[in-house]
């Protein structure tokens, strides 16, 4: 049990470090679409939250997923 817990701990640290140092894939999009005007969880937003819909749209454009925190910040900024 102790060995198992140790390996979980080590694995967690390694994965965290890997995520931190591996660069994201290049993206080419120019600007975020203005999703804040949409009604979330409706057909026009693909039945997603606005942050989720923005993440999907940016994946379509760039092939990489932006984080939920970043998407939420952009939606909040667009609402201002």
């Amino acid at each position, binding site marked *: 049990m102790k060995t198992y817990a140790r390996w979980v701990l080590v694995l967690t640290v390694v994965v965290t470090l890997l995520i931190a140092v591996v660069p994201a894939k290049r993206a080419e*999009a*120019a600007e975020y679409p203005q999703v804040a*005007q949409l009604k979330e969880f409706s057909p026009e937003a693909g039945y997603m939250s606005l942050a989720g819909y923005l993440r999907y749209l940016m994946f*379509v454009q760039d092939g990489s997923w932006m984080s939920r925190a970043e998407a939420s910040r952009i939606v909040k900024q667009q609402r201002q």
Partner: protein
Amino acid sequence: MTAPEVTQVSGTFPQKQSRRRGVQVGAAACLALLLYPCLSLQASPFDWEGRLVRLAVKAYKTAARAPEKARAAAATAKPVSPGQPAWQPAESPYGVVLDVQSLSLQQIPQAVQAAHQLGFRMIRTVVPWDEVEPQPKRFRFQKYDALVDSARSCGLDVLLTLSYCPPWASSLASEPAAISSRAMPEGGEAWSRFVGTAVARYKQKVRLWQIWERLDMVNFRGTRQDYAVLLVAASKAAKLADPLAQVLASEPGGIDLGFIAYLCQPPTLSSFDAICLNPRVDTPELAARYLSVLRTILQRTASGPSKRIYVTDWSFPIAHDATGSSLPLSPAELSSFVVRAYAVAFAMGAERVFWTELRDSAANSPRGASWGLLDEQFQPRPAATALKAFFDFAPQKLSAELWALGDTPVRMVSLGGEGAAGRALLWSATGEVKLDPTELPGVKLGPHAHMWALEHPAEDDLLQHGDAVTFGKTPVFLSDVELAPTQLSKVGAWSASSPPKDYVYLDFSETTSEKGGIASSKYRSWRAAAPEILSVQDRLAAKLVPDGQTASPFLYCDVDDDFLFYNSGGSPVTVEVTASAANATVPAGFNLMYDSPRGHVFSSWQSVRPATGWQQYVITLPEALFANKNGFDFRLSALGSKQPVFVARVVVGQEGRPNRQQP
């Protein structure tokens, strides 16, 4: 030089990250402390547990001290005293981008010297904030000191682009470095201090300061409101440090006219002196339309000195598809491209033009692209030789104009300026055309007229042969000519050669479905944008499947620019979609995402009446701009539909134009 204005912007720098980061680190520390007794691990040679706990405690203490450090790190740029001599730049329009980060300290003078020998008089480079100030107030300017000193010793001007955010100042500090370095700084103090420090360091040596690299997602993870905040803060800090500093604004790439129009209004209007462009057109001539409209925007909005146009990054277009690859060009094609790029940009009002890269390196050649004029060993490529020939042919202080010769496809850039009167470059914008040089419309050859091809020695005079000359994409040089403007049309206020259309359309049932003025097939390599074309109810139609992971819910459309381009303030645009859906019991529908002055926005959701055959659905777009943002004008999306939607025909019209319906 007017004093910098104090402006207010609606947005602000992100402010809450310190507290959030502190909470996150604190939580991590607490978790580690809680886990420690639970795990009851035995001591090991590596002492993982102890190290983790110490790391967490140290991180928590660092986060707790962050606000104090931020307050202590107030902007330190000092205002300059009046009466200092104005520094005079070389005022040459020819520039190139140099990736200083890819060079060693010893290679920088070699690169600068190579640029000088090729005829360049300006160098632009990015000063990455995250590299220069990896820790607060600990600066590493050595490479940029070497660049500036080397450039001055050669008589070259330098344009520095301040960009990228160090992790300690990032509003997305918890993200990977590739994201956090492209995010907005947290709070404005550190950013202003960095700008002020850099500008003050190179005062009287560097006058041109671009604020952030091209604003695409590769370089900037913020909104246009975020950039406005960055720009205003940087402008204040730069002009405080050096009143002679020129602040240059960036755009997202592709000459994003809607974005630039946004910057050309208060409060950002007074915060920059020039706009920096990154054209991404398949051929340089296509940039003329954008630059023509841009000049109109700048003239319309300039309330003080007019804004100047700098093409700070002319590169090949990057495909917006799943590969993101660049267009492959042969050495000859590259030579032709770069010469036409510089000539067209100057003719359309750009004061300075920078090719995207002086030298190839693994770092600046994504996906194997070779955009450099020199190879990695600093040896010139054919494009460098071609560009040198153009620089030798054109004056350092030049004026230029772009002309269309009668109804031929030949384009001509006439050069003006000291020692260059009567000189011109000619090429064909579309394919090859054979013409008698003595009968070129609007061109009168002088007694000492001389014509030679770019790829051949100047001594090889094409006029001596007495034959017709084949004009292709590669320019020919012509000297001692007079122009007859009555037979020429200036390419500026672009006009279509064909009569204006009442509407444009895309109909999949037509064998040449895109002759109607809406292009779609060129986007089929894009992600989720290759709908199956099949026969439905006696018509060919695109099947939009509402499953973004495996199928294609999108249909991209590009409206002929001769029909509609930059419809700012124009009448609303109407889009009529002929669509159907099969299953009577399942909802169906679509909406549009389209180019507007606010960026890409969405139409209202349009329900499709299922099992009723082909029906026309008209959507009115009150603020359609259609200036090819991201390479397209609008996109149909059936992502929110519960069943596939079939689209047979799309018609785009504009209110006020007659006969929108098909004949």
